[in-house]
């Protein structure tokens, strides 16, 4: 207060010069990080853009060279022709049915186990979890090839149920892990309070735990559905006429034109965008590294 005038000039001459190098280094680092992040993003996005572009190009444009990287004459004819091909819409339906069957089955079998793993420290729990991890380490071929014979014998070959059974086996470990991590996040106190206030265990589960766990359980089901939607080996080996979309595409790869293949690729990619958008919050806690 005694020297209200601006002492800036004085101060700077007296203080040592400010070292700007760390600040500059920091800024340079931020720019580098941003550039690297943009490069990675470009690598991830470009193929998605190009398959979209291909799916909405005319057949002539697909055969032309060099290709244009910008949407010139956008058309839905390639996609509609793909959808009109015999078997394609049916395979969409089959994929949907198999996915839903897998979803229900793995939830009915897996969610109770997830609840048990989350709530109780029981003898054999570690063994059970290691077993689940081991199951994920099995190649699908080991199951699907012998099952093609077994299913023929028990009349499950070429049915949606047969494929759904295998897909449930594949999805089960993840279902248990995700639902367990969901149930862990529901405070145990609330459940106990419900028990104290006269709920039965089932009632406490239904009225308290389930409503809180529902979003996470839904996420787990979506994951299961996508796993089934994408799976191609088992679906291809276990079906003949009633094929899922990937199995159909795989069996027709060599006999179909590029336009058909690009439209099919696009049709298979679109659901994954939706899936990731819904699942973003849960992506990080379903790999078994969080609850161990």
């Amino acid at each position, binding site marked *: 207060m005694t020297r209200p005038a601006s002492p800036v000039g004085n101060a700077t001459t007296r203080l040592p010069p400010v070292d700007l190098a760390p600040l500059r280094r920091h800024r340079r680092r931020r720019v580098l990080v941003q550039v690297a992040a943009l490069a990675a993003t470009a690598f991830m996005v470009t193929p*998605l853009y190009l398959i979209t572009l291909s799916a909405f190009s005319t057949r002539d444009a697909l055969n032309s060279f060099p290709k244009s990287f910008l949407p010139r004459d956008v058309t839905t004819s390639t996609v509609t022709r793909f959808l009109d091909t015999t078997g394609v819409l049916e395979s969409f339906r089959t994929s949907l049915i198999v996915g839903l069957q897998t979803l229900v089955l793995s939830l009915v079998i897996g969610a109770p186990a997830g609840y048990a793993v989350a709530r109780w420290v029981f003898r054999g729990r570690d063994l059970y979890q290691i077993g689940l991890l081991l199951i994920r380490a099995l190649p699908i071929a080991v199951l699907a090839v012998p099952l093609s*014979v077994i299913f023929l014998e028990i009349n499950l070959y070429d049915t949606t149920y047969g494929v759904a059974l295998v897909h449930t086996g594949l999805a089960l470990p993840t279902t248990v892990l995700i639902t367990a991590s969901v149930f862990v996040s529901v405070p145990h106190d609330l459940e106990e309070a419900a028990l104290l206030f006269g709920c039965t265990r089932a009632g406490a589960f239904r009225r308290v735990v389930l409503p809180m766990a529902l979003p996470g359980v839904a996420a787990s089901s979506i994951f299961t559905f996508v796993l089934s939607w994408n799976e191609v080996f088992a679906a291809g080996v276990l079906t003949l006429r009633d094929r899922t979309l990937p199995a159909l595409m795989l069996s027709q*790869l060599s006999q179909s034109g590029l336009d058909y293949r690009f439209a099919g690729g696009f049709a298979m990619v679109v659901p994954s965008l939706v899936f990731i958008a819904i699942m973003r919050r849960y992506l990080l806690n379903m790999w078994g590294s969080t609850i161990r």
Partner: protein
Amino acid sequence: MTTAAVFDVEAGTGRRARWGRLAAPYLLVLPSALFVTLVFGWPIVSGLGDAFTDGGALTLTHWRRMVADQQFWPAVRNTLLLIAVIIPLQFAFAVGMALLLQARPRLSGLYFYIWVVPLAVSDLAAGLVWLSIFADRGYLNSFLDWFGVDLVEWLSYQNTNTMFLAVVVAEIWRATSLVLVIVVAGMQLVPRDYDEAAQVFGASFWQRMRHVVLPQLKPSLQVALILRTILALQTFAVAQALTGENFPLLVGKSYQWTVRLYDQPVGSAFATLLLAIATAFSIAYLWLLRPARGERGGGR
């Protein structure tokens, strides 16, 4: 059961209630255990039987026919080579991308979303996506055309190396996101204090990676390694979409023998071989990444 059940246990009475409580987790786990045993155990046993027997007698005929397949050794080579190339690259990229995210650049939420989108793309779809790029009249050749480069037949059966390259790029695009998600999840569990302390004491970037970040990520990396190797072993639709059957892989051969040639025992032999490789890899990883002596539990 009413409230009494809850107090019963604490009072030490009500044997039935207590038994119910003890049995509950087992009853809940039981269906999944049974299902797994049935859906996994039965086919594996039956598959081993198919691969090693013919009309009830033990035989190695199917294995001989498997090895006699002209594409057998190329398939073995391609499968192992693919793993050897893809896995290190993917882990380097994934750890790098996770570190980028940890630096919290602007828009990091959006970046994460975009980087994990391929997580939900199937390997068949990924193959078709990259087919639009690597095809003879595809986007890569169109791009190179600007620079006056002649048309390259990336996916021709004569160019084994470019075929391999195409499959590697497509697989890196598709499956790096899986490793990324696991690594990011692991990083969230690791307190930042250690890294900050190392920074304060003047450790260089590589020193911090080597001695602080990577050791703490070990559990996640182990899970990711096993999972990713098993999945890489099973990759075949990418190669089929890109190259047809010109780039043989073991899973693809198993599919071919089972579905196209209706020779399921040979398909089973291929599958059994895959199982052996997968098991070998898992055991090797568990052993290589086992906790060093004294790493667990600070005491003693």
